[in-house]
Protein backbone atom coordinates (compact mmCIF):
# COMPACT_ATOMS: atom_id res chain seq x y z
CA UNK A 1 0.00 0.00 0.00
CA UNK A 2 1.31 3.37 -0.93
CA UNK A 3 0.43 6.94 -0.13
CA UNK A 4 0.02 7.78 -3.81
CA UNK A 5 -2.92 5.41 -4.29
CA UNK A 6 -4.98 7.19 -1.65
CA UNK A 7 -4.03 10.60 -2.96
CA UNK A 8 -5.07 9.68 -6.50
CA UNK A 9 -8.42 8.31 -5.31
CA UNK A 10 -8.96 11.53 -3.37
CA UNK A 11 -8.07 13.61 -6.42
CA UNK A 12 -10.54 11.66 -8.55
CA UNK A 13 -13.29 12.11 -5.96
CA UNK A 14 -12.56 15.84 -5.76
CA UNK A 15 -12.79 16.21 -9.54
CA UNK A 16 -16.09 14.31 -9.63
CA UNK A 17 -17.33 16.67 -6.92
CA UNK A 18 -16.31 19.75 -8.89
CA UNK A 19 -18.01 18.42 -12.01
CA UNK A 20 -21.22 17.83 -10.08
CA UNK A 21 -21.00 21.23 -8.40
CA UNK A 22 -20.76 23.07 -11.69
CA UNK A 23 -23.16 21.08 -13.87
CA UNK A 24 -26.00 20.22 -11.48
CA UNK A 25 -29.37 21.87 -11.91
CA UNK A 26 -30.86 20.59 -8.66
CA UNK A 27 -29.87 22.42 -5.49
CA UNK A 28 -29.77 19.29 -3.35
CA UNK A 29 -27.36 17.68 -5.79
CA UNK A 30 -25.09 20.71 -5.45
CA UNK A 31 -25.02 20.14 -1.69
CA UNK A 32 -24.19 16.48 -2.25
CA UNK A 33 -21.30 17.45 -4.53
CA UNK A 34 -19.94 19.72 -1.81
CA UNK A 35 -20.04 16.78 0.59
CA UNK A 36 -18.09 14.70 -1.94
CA UNK A 37 -15.39 17.35 -2.15
CA UNK A 38 -15.12 17.61 1.64
CA UNK A 39 -14.72 13.85 1.84
CA UNK A 40 -11.95 13.92 -0.75
CA UNK A 41 -10.08 16.42 1.39
CA UNK A 42 -10.64 14.17 4.40
CA UNK A 43 -9.12 11.18 2.60
CA UNK A 44 -6.08 13.32 1.83
CA UNK A 45 -5.70 14.35 5.47
CA UNK A 46 -6.04 10.78 6.73
CA UNK A 47 -3.55 9.44 4.20
CA UNK A 48 -0.98 12.06 5.14
CA UNK A 49 -1.62 11.38 8.81
CA UNK A 50 -1.01 7.66 8.37
CA UNK A 51 2.02 7.75 6.12
CA UNK A 52 3.90 10.89 7.11
CA UNK A 53 2.95 11.37 10.77
CA UNK A 54 1.89 8.01 12.19
CA UNK A 55 2.93 8.64 15.79
CA UNK A 56 1.48 12.11 16.29
CA UNK A 57 -1.74 11.83 14.32
CA UNK A 58 -2.67 15.44 13.78
CA UNK A 59 -4.30 14.67 10.43
CA UNK A 60 -6.99 12.64 12.16
CA UNK A 61 -7.74 15.56 14.49
CA UNK A 62 -8.03 17.80 11.45
CA UNK A 63 -10.45 15.43 9.77
CA UNK A 64 -12.60 15.34 12.90
CA UNK A 65 -12.83 19.12 12.62
CA UNK A 66 -13.65 18.88 8.91
CA UNK A 67 -16.43 16.40 9.67
CA UNK A 68 -17.85 18.83 12.24
CA UNK A 69 -17.79 21.75 9.81
CA UNK A 70 -19.36 19.58 7.11
CA UNK A 71 -22.26 18.65 9.35
CA UNK A 72 -22.91 22.30 10.21
CA UNK A 73 -22.62 23.25 6.54
CA UNK A 74 -25.13 20.59 5.48
CA UNK A 75 -27.66 21.78 8.08
CA UNK A 76 -27.38 25.46 7.13
CA UNK A 77 -27.32 24.65 3.41
CA UNK A 78 -30.50 22.63 3.60
CA UNK A 79 -32.17 25.36 5.64
CA UNK A 80 -31.27 27.89 2.93
CA UNK A 81 -32.58 25.52 0.26
CA UNK A 82 -35.87 25.14 2.13
CA UNK A 83 -36.19 28.89 2.53
CA UNK A 84 -35.50 29.56 -1.16
CA UNK A 85 -37.87 26.79 -2.20
CA UNK A 86 -40.60 28.32 -0.10
CA UNK A 87 -40.10 31.73 -1.71
CA UNK A 88 -39.36 30.81 -5.32
CA UNK A 89 -41.17 27.45 -5.56
CA UNK A 90 -38.44 25.78 -7.54
CA UNK A 91 -35.19 23.88 -7.00
CA UNK A 92 -33.62 24.87 -10.31
CA UNK A 93 -30.21 26.46 -9.86
CA UNK A 94 -30.63 28.49 -13.04
CA UNK A 95 -33.55 30.42 -11.55
CA UNK A 96 -31.74 31.41 -8.36
CA UNK A 97 -30.31 34.62 -9.72
CA UNK A 98 -31.43 37.06 -7.04
CA UNK A 99 -27.93 38.22 -6.29
CA UNK A 100 -26.66 38.03 -9.85
CA UNK A 101 -26.48 41.49 -11.37
Amino acid at each position, binding site marked *: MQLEYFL*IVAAALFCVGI*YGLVTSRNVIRVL*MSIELMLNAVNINLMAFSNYL*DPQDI*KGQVFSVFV*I*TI*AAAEAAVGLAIVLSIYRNRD*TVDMEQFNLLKW
Partner: protein
Amino acid sequence: MNLAEGVQIVSFGILSLMVIGAALGVVLLSNIVHSAFLLGMVFASISGLYILLNAGFVAAAQILVYVGAVNILILFGIMLVNKQQDFVPLPNAWLGKLATAAVCGGLFALLSTMVLGTTWAISTEAAAGDGSVVLIGMHLFSDFLLPFELASVLLLIALVGAIILARREFIPDEQPGDPQPEGLKLPERPRDLVAVGSAPPDGDA
Protein backbone atom coordinates in the same frame (compact mmCIF):
# COMPACT_ATOMS: atom_id res chain seq x y z
CA MET B 1 -3.49 -2.76 10.44
CA ASN B 2 -1.93 -6.19 10.45
CA LEU B 3 -3.51 -7.62 7.34
CA ALA B 4 -1.48 -9.20 4.60
CA GLU B 5 -0.34 -6.87 1.87
CA GLY B 6 -2.41 -8.63 -0.80
CA VAL B 7 -5.59 -8.39 1.26
CA GLN B 8 -4.97 -4.68 1.77
CA ILE B 9 -4.43 -4.10 -1.94
CA VAL B 10 -7.55 -6.02 -2.91
CA SER B 11 -9.77 -4.32 -0.34
CA PHE B 12 -8.35 -0.93 -1.30
CA GLY B 13 -9.17 -1.65 -4.95
CA ILE B 14 -12.73 -2.70 -4.17
CA LEU B 15 -13.33 0.26 -1.84
CA SER B 16 -11.90 2.83 -4.22
CA LEU B 17 -13.94 1.42 -7.11
CA MET B 18 -17.04 1.70 -4.93
CA VAL B 19 -16.16 5.27 -3.95
CA ILE B 20 -15.52 6.50 -7.48
CA GLY B 21 -18.39 4.56 -9.05
CA ALA B 22 -20.92 5.68 -6.47
CA ALA B 23 -19.66 9.27 -6.68
CA LEU B 24 -20.16 9.21 -10.44
CA GLY B 25 -23.64 7.85 -9.80
CA VAL B 26 -24.34 10.70 -7.36
CA VAL B 27 -23.37 13.26 -9.97
CA LEU B 28 -24.76 11.67 -13.12
CA LEU B 29 -27.98 9.86 -12.19
CA SER B 30 -31.17 11.71 -13.02
CA ASN B 31 -33.22 10.50 -10.05
CA ILE B 32 -32.11 12.44 -7.00
CA VAL B 33 -33.30 9.83 -4.51
CA HIS B 34 -30.96 7.28 -6.08
CA SER B 35 -28.21 9.88 -5.83
CA ALA B 36 -28.85 10.32 -2.12
CA PHE B 37 -28.63 6.58 -1.42
CA LEU B 38 -25.47 6.29 -3.51
CA LEU B 39 -24.06 9.15 -1.44
CA GLY B 40 -24.53 6.97 1.64
CA MET B 41 -22.57 4.24 -0.15
CA VAL B 42 -19.76 6.70 -0.88
CA PHE B 43 -19.58 7.65 2.80
CA ALA B 44 -19.55 4.02 3.97
CA SER B 45 -16.81 3.09 1.51
CA ILE B 46 -14.71 6.06 2.60
CA SER B 47 -15.07 4.81 6.16
CA GLY B 48 -13.60 1.50 4.95
CA LEU B 49 -10.66 3.42 3.47
CA TYR B 50 -10.12 5.04 6.88
CA ILE B 51 -9.95 1.62 8.51
CA LEU B 52 -7.26 0.69 5.98
CA LEU B 53 -5.44 3.82 7.11
CA ASN B 54 -5.35 2.70 10.77
CA ALA B 55 -7.97 5.20 11.89
CA GLY B 56 -10.77 3.33 13.56
CA PHE B 57 -12.15 6.27 15.50
CA VAL B 58 -12.52 8.55 12.49
CA ALA B 59 -14.07 5.67 10.55
CA ALA B 60 -16.72 5.31 13.25
CA ALA B 61 -17.24 9.08 13.34
CA GLN B 62 -17.60 9.07 9.55
CA ILE B 63 -20.34 6.44 9.72
CA LEU B 64 -22.10 8.21 12.60
CA VAL B 65 -21.95 11.76 11.31
CA TYR B 66 -22.08 11.32 7.55
CA VAL B 67 -24.26 8.26 7.02
CA GLY B 68 -26.29 8.77 10.16
CA ALA B 69 -26.77 12.52 10.13
CA VAL B 70 -25.80 14.26 6.90
CA ASN B 71 -27.21 11.65 4.54
CA ILE B 72 -30.46 11.41 6.46
CA LEU B 73 -30.65 15.22 6.51
CA ILE B 74 -30.23 15.29 2.74
CA LEU B 75 -32.93 12.63 2.34
CA PHE B 76 -35.28 14.74 4.47
CA GLY B 77 -34.40 17.77 2.36
CA ILE B 78 -35.25 15.83 -0.79
CA MET B 79 -38.57 14.80 0.71
CA LEU B 80 -39.37 18.38 1.70
CA VAL B 81 -38.54 19.99 -1.65
CA ASN B 82 -39.22 17.08 -3.95
CA LYS B 83 -40.96 18.82 -6.77
CA GLN B 84 -41.31 16.72 -9.87
CA GLN B 85 -40.45 19.34 -12.40
CA ASP B 86 -38.63 19.10 -15.66
CA PHE B 87 -35.96 21.73 -15.85
CA VAL B 88 -36.16 24.00 -18.85
CA PRO B 89 -33.31 22.89 -21.10
CA LEU B 90 -30.69 25.53 -21.55
CA PRO B 91 -29.29 26.32 -24.95
CA ASN B 92 -25.77 24.98 -25.39
CA ALA B 93 -25.88 23.07 -22.11
CA TRP B 94 -23.67 20.36 -23.58
CA LEU B 95 -20.97 22.94 -24.20
CA GLY B 96 -20.82 23.86 -20.52
CA LYS B 97 -20.77 20.20 -19.49
CA LEU B 98 -18.01 19.48 -21.97
CA ALA B 99 -15.93 22.42 -20.76
CA THR B 100 -16.46 21.40 -17.12
CA ALA B 101 -15.49 17.81 -17.87
CA ALA B 102 -12.36 19.03 -19.64
CA VAL B 103 -11.42 21.26 -16.72
CA CYS B 104 -12.02 18.48 -14.21
CA GLY B 105 -10.04 15.99 -16.26
CA GLY B 106 -7.23 18.48 -16.56
CA LEU B 107 -7.27 19.11 -12.83
CA PHE B 108 -7.16 15.38 -12.17
CA ALA B 109 -4.22 14.95 -14.55
CA LEU B 110 -2.42 17.84 -12.89
CA LEU B 111 -2.99 16.47 -9.40
CA SER B 112 -1.95 12.97 -10.44
CA THR B 113 1.31 14.09 -12.00
CA MET B 114 2.02 16.20 -8.94
CA VAL B 115 1.29 13.28 -6.58
CA LEU B 116 3.38 10.84 -8.61
CA GLY B 117 6.23 13.26 -9.15
CA THR B 118 6.72 14.27 -5.53
CA THR B 119 9.07 12.30 -3.29
CA TRP B 120 7.14 12.01 -0.04
CA ALA B 121 8.99 11.80 3.24
CA ILE B 122 7.38 8.53 4.26
CA SER B 123 7.80 7.88 7.96
CA THR B 124 8.94 4.43 9.01
CA GLU B 125 7.53 4.55 12.54
CA ALA B 126 4.80 2.16 13.53
CA ALA B 127 1.29 3.54 13.24
CA ALA B 128 -0.60 4.50 16.38
CA GLY B 129 -3.37 2.04 15.55
CA ASP B 130 -5.85 1.52 18.37
CA GLY B 131 -4.14 4.11 20.54
CA SER B 132 -5.37 6.77 18.15
CA VAL B 133 -8.47 7.48 20.25
CA VAL B 134 -6.28 8.44 23.22
CA LEU B 135 -4.02 10.53 21.00
CA ILE B 136 -6.95 12.37 19.41
CA GLY B 137 -8.34 13.09 22.85
CA MET B 138 -4.98 14.41 24.03
CA HIS B 139 -4.74 16.65 20.99
CA LEU B 140 -8.29 17.94 21.35
CA PHE B 141 -7.74 19.00 24.94
CA SER B 142 -4.20 20.32 24.72
CA ASP B 143 -2.90 21.92 21.54
CA PHE B 144 -6.20 21.91 19.64
CA LEU B 145 -8.28 23.21 22.54
CA LEU B 146 -9.14 26.56 20.97
CA PRO B 147 -10.29 25.09 17.62
CA PHE B 148 -12.29 22.51 19.57
CA GLU B 149 -14.15 25.20 21.51
CA LEU B 150 -14.60 27.26 18.36
CA ALA B 151 -16.10 24.21 16.65
CA SER B 152 -18.64 23.87 19.45
CA VAL B 153 -19.57 27.56 19.13
CA LEU B 154 -19.84 27.12 15.36
CA LEU B 155 -22.18 24.15 15.81
CA LEU B 156 -24.35 26.21 18.15
CA ILE B 157 -24.48 29.09 15.66
CA ALA B 158 -25.31 26.69 12.83
CA LEU B 159 -28.08 25.16 14.90
CA VAL B 160 -29.68 28.52 15.67
CA GLY B 161 -29.16 29.75 12.12
CA ALA B 162 -30.70 26.67 10.56
CA ILE B 163 -33.76 26.96 12.77
CA ILE B 164 -34.19 30.66 11.99
CA LEU B 165 -33.73 30.13 8.26
CA ALA B 166 -36.03 27.17 7.95
CA ARG B 167 -38.94 28.14 10.15
CA ARG B 168 -42.01 29.78 8.73
CA GLU B 169 -42.20 33.52 9.18
CA PHE B 170 -45.85 33.51 10.12
CA ILE B 171 -48.45 31.00 11.01
CA PRO B 172 -51.62 31.73 9.05
CA ASP B 173 -54.22 32.43 11.68
CA GLU B 174 -57.38 30.49 11.36
CA GLN B 175 -60.86 31.76 12.02
CA PRO B 176 -62.71 29.70 14.62
CA GLY B 177 -65.58 28.98 12.28
CA ASP B 178 -63.41 27.79 9.42
CA PRO B 179 -63.63 24.17 8.48
CA GLN B 180 -60.46 22.23 9.04
CA PRO B 181 -58.23 22.47 5.98
CA GLU B 182 -57.92 19.33 3.96
CA GLY B 183 -54.22 18.90 4.50
CA LEU B 184 -54.50 18.68 8.26
CA LYS B 185 -56.92 15.76 8.31
CA LEU B 186 -55.36 12.44 9.00
CA PRO B 187 -56.60 9.64 6.77
CA GLU B 188 -56.64 7.29 9.74
CA ARG B 189 -58.49 9.67 11.98
CA PRO B 190 -59.87 7.74 14.94
CA ARG B 191 -63.59 7.35 15.20
CA ASP B 192 -65.60 7.91 18.32
CA LEU B 193 -64.69 5.54 21.07
CA VAL B 194 -66.98 2.63 21.71
CA ALA B 195 -67.18 1.22 25.19
CA VAL B 196 -65.69 -2.24 25.35
CA GLY B 197 -68.21 -5.01 25.73
CA SER B 198 -71.26 -2.95 24.94
CA ALA B 199 -73.40 -3.88 22.01
CA PRO B 200 -73.13 -1.52 19.05
CA PRO B 201 -76.08 0.81 18.82
CA ASP B 202 -78.85 -0.07 16.45
CA GLY B 203 -78.67 1.18 12.96
CA ASP B 204 -74.94 1.47 13.03
CA ALA B 205 -73.84 -1.36 10.81
